[in-house]
């Protein structure tokens, strides 16, 4: 019996070890390959050059256009997901009956279960043509459409985390507000949401981190042209799209061109790592507040 326990324990430790090893392996691989890249391209150039054309005749290795594309699609996604997610969370928390909540919450979760490739084609074939009717000058591949659909994708994340934050606001604050003659809406907007703001911030940070790493939707619908722009109506390329484009193409292994994907990858990795940690730190802080 005792031996069996020990065996099980060892197996559990091994499983935990595998995930740690995998993470470690990814970091090492990214760092080693990116080091190859940075031996040939100075970090300063990488961070300040405004062009990204590693596969072409006039080679430039500035990550900014890809970062801009990533932040632009992410920005659009958050602009969609934050207000919508917050409205949903407020509605579910402050207005909806228990029965309605029980129906709508699982339905919201379904949004998170839709494969991202489906979202991508939805953006390209439904959302883009629709938006073009409103904005005729909009290009077929653009950050607006891809970002909006990505916003829908991360909606459940924002709404459920925000709802948790709203639920954590003590009942006493709501009662105080109502007792002073506030309506439900006034109470929600002036007391509950501000009191939950740190929790809502966490949900947004985690949503940003998710959107930054999202690949399929932007690869399909946002375009493949690295462009340093804040205009959401033209084609852009995100870091993830570039990595997919190169790693599925015929760029020879070991060349500088190939190493660009690791440089791009490590940029993405650092970006999401920082965001997740900021989110985690915030969440810790926010927990202390109410417990």
């Amino acid at each position, binding site marked *: 019996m005792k031996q069996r326990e020990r065996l099980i324990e060892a197996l559990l430790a091994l499983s935990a070890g595998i995930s740690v090893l995998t993470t470690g392996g990814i970091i090492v691989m990214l760092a080693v390959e990116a080091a190859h890249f940075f031996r040939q391209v100075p970090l300063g150039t990488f961070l300040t050059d405004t062009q990204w054309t590693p596969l072409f005749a006039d080679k430039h290795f500035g990550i900014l256009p890809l970062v801009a594309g990533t932040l632009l699609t992410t920005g659009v996604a958050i602009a969609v997901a934050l207000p919508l997610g917050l409205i949903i969370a407020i509605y579910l928390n402050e207005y909806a009956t228990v029965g309605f909540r029980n129906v709508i919450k699982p339905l919201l979760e379904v949004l998170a279960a839709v494969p991202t490739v489906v979202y991508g084609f939805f953006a390209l074939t439904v959302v883009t043509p629709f938006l073009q009717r409103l904005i005729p000058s909009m290009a077929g591949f653009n950050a607006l459409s891809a970002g909006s659909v990505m916003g829908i994708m991360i909606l459940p994340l924002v709404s459920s985390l925000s709802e948790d934050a709203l639920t954590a606001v*003590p009942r*006493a*604050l709501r*009662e*105080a*507000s*109502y*007792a*002073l*003659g*506030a*309506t439900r809406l*006034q109470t929600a907007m*002036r*007391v509950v949401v*501000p*009191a939950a703001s740190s929790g809502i911030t966490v949900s947004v940070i985690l949503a940003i981190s998710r959107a930054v790493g999202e690949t399929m939707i932007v690869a399909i619908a946002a375009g493949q042209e690295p462009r340093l722009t804040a205009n959401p109506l033209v084609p852009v390329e995100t870091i993830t799209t570039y990595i997919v484009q190169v790693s599925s193409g015929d760029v020879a292994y070991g060349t500088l061109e190939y190493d660009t994907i690791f440089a791009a990858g490590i940029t993405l990795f650092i970006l999401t790592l920082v965001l997740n940690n900021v989110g985690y730190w915030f969440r810790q802080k926010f927990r202390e507040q109410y417990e």
Partner: protein
Amino acid sequence: MPELEVKHVNVYYGTNHVLQDISMTIEAHTVTALIGPSGCGKSTFLRLFNRMNDFISDFRYEGSILIQGQDIYAPQQAVEELRKRVGMVFQRPNPFPKSIYDNVTYGLVLQGVRSKAVLDEVVEKSLRQAALWEEVKNDLRKSALALSGGQQQRLCIARVLAVEPHILLMDEPASALDPISTAKIEELIYDLKQQYTILIVTHNMQQAGRVSDKTAFFNYGHLIEYDDTGRLFTQPSHEQTQNYITGRFG
């Protein structure tokens, strides 16, 4: 006309009959203490007057409650308007996580008051009324959460007074406070009686004796006895009352 009239009020939570056939009359500018053991219905009774029970999903109500002759459960009664006339102070201090200033002005800002001069004046007046002005007048922009418990509770009172209600409902307002803070709140209640009609729920017999003009004793959802405070505590006409005030149960 009496300030408050309660006529044959029954309250149910689902099938639970929590208040049974209550009738009483309360005059303006008096303090009425509501006493009784836990779960006797006194808090539910208090919350009838600003309709805070409406948030409970299976709350049901019969009878009539009149404030200055007006039925507050009439269909045309706007709940928000009612709550501006009937302020409430809760058991635990519950200031908003905002500045002291914003806490006091909250109710007025809801009503659309934007003038800084008006708000400044109300803040000072309300904080003076709540005997907090001298302690915080230099820190109005500080977070209300930085205040001590007793100060927070007086801030909550100031927040209610700023809206200028006629009636003040207090649900064990000093139970979470130390003796010095409690004394300050009691003093305050005495002063406020000049302008407000006050209903206070309390577990503290001495407190009821000190601050109130009349006392109502509740038990198991019934109003057992309602009389001048002095008489109720010295010559109760019911045995249940006698047992409760002498500490044999509750």
